[in-house]
């Protein structure tokens, strides 16, 4: 079976800073990959490359075996890639419902009028599905939500428009207990319904609960791949991340 996504020898420089230094990375069909690594390891950069937010310096990307060029977010969307960024991907001035459907608004009538009824109904359902219990009217602007509520809206959007590959960059940040469970459930159900997923988080417990395979990055390089969470421990992975080998010596 060919992989859904295969990135080969990806290199990305910002000026003099090498953020990605020849990284190979793949995601299979219906696979949840956990991407771990310390701060500044290059995780966000790697997935931004995939979602068209930053151009690569060199390297190739294949989608189901065919080479693709992802130069813009439009390209990425065309490839079936959907991303929730670590930094805000919401428009603070717009309402929850408008943000949820941004770019894919349902319309009705001959004049392309927004279908507010459908949008609001769907918004209410989605927020509850992520674990928001409070009744928040869907026309509330994002700017008057709490940090976690914002994150929940972003997740709800990805759920609704689930695509071939869903990328979640630290989605559980800011989230409370119930909302975190909502996200983890969503990731599990995504696989069940045939999607693949890249899951980035610093909370290794969350990662262990849902992923099929763990990849670890360090200082722009991939330092481990094919880790099966069922066959290792949180502590062992932590050691890889922080760069201490199992026997206690620093790696680099």
């Amino acid at each position: 079976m060919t992989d859904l996504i295969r990135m080969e020898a990806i290199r990305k420089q910002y000026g003099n800073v090498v953020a990605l230094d020849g990284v190979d990375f793949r995601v299979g069909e219906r696979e949840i990959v956990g991407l771990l690594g310390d701060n500044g390891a290059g995780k966000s950069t790697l997935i931004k490359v995939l979602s068209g937010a930053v151009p690569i310096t060199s390297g190739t990307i294949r989608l189901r075996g065919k080479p693709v060029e992802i130069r813009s977010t439009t390209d990425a969307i065309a490839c079936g890639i959907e991303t929730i960024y670590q930094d805000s991907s919401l428009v603070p001035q717009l309402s929850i419902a408008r943000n949820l459907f941004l770019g894919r608004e349902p319309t009705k009538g001959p004049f392309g009028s927004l279908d507010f009824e459908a949008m609001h109904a769907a918004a209410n359902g989605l927020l509850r599905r992520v674990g928001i219990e409070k009744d928040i009217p869907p026309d509330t602007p994002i700017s008057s939500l709490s940090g976690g509520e914002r994150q929940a809206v972003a997740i709800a959007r990805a759920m609704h428009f689930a695509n071939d590959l869903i990328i979640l960059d630290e989605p559980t940040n800011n989230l409370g207990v119930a909302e975190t469970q909502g996200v983890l459930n969503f990731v599990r159900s995504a696989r069940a319904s045939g999607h693949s997923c890249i899951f980035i988080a610093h909370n290794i417990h969350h990662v262990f609960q849902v992923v099929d395979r763990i990849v670890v990055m360090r200082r722009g390089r991939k330092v481990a791949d094919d880790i099966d969470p069922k066959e290792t421990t949180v502590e062992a992975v932590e050691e890889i991340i922080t760069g201490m080998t199992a026997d206690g010596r620093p790696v680099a």
Partner: protein
Amino acid sequence: MTTRTPLERLIAMPEFGPLALLLVEIALFTAINPTFLSPLNISNTLTFTVELGIIALAMTLLMTSGEFDLSVGSMFGFAPVLMWTLFNANILPFGAAFLVAMLVAAAIGLFSGLFVTRLKIPSFLVTLGMLLVVRGTSLYITDGFPQRTWSAEGTWLATILVGDFYVGPFRIYASLFWFIGLAAILGYVLNRTKAGNWIQAAGGNPLAARARGVKVGRVKVALFMLTASCAAFAGMISSIRTSAANPNSGTGYELEVIAMVVIGGTVLTGGRGTILGTVIGTLILRVMRNGIVLIGVPGLAYNIFVGAIILGMMALHSWLERRHNAGV
């Protein structure tokens, strides 16, 4: 969440502040000179107001998307000069000349839009450059001479654009309907359509919008074209109505139009815009200018009054906002 009475809802609207200002202004001027509310004066004020208003409406959408256009004033002067030149030189019939001027304006808007979105140059610089080029071109093609405009009256196009008739004692120009129609359409587009959502998102958080597949660049280019076309349209109706096509007309309108939009409540940096607010903002500024002449302010002090009233109204506005925020 408690339910609100209609009055409370009115007060909570962002357009309430500007509306209150407008009413205060009208009340004041009427108190000083009752002629202010005479049908003749109302008809007279509305005439030019709606011409500027047409530009302000388009500018509202452009500013909501996070850009602005300084070249609208020179476009206002350029389009009629072009139209009359084509017509007077017997190159084209009137209707075709009108159409060509509209197309040229749209093309200039397209050019500005592409410059801003593709080359990532601030719209301030692009449209300032465009202001100079367009103004210079109108001077250059006319050699500085105003164009003659005698022969438009009575043609069907002129009637549609600026035909006038009386409703009771009020003399109404067709341009009023263009303004109302455009306000209705653009208000609808901004608040209730997909395009409107994209415009607001483009201004509010362009990165997020782009990540969702919104064609931010295309939205902005389209709005630059809309704004340039509306400025050209306004310039041509104004020119037909006043029977004048001077390469200098429209000088300085850019700041006045932006002021109308900002007073109405649209944010200068994008993301939030209101067509209703712009309609009110347009009225506020034009009524003020009319009122100042009517109450007999000395000619040289005119600007002092316009400026002082803007400042005073903004202070009042800020006070209203604060009371309103504290009150709820």
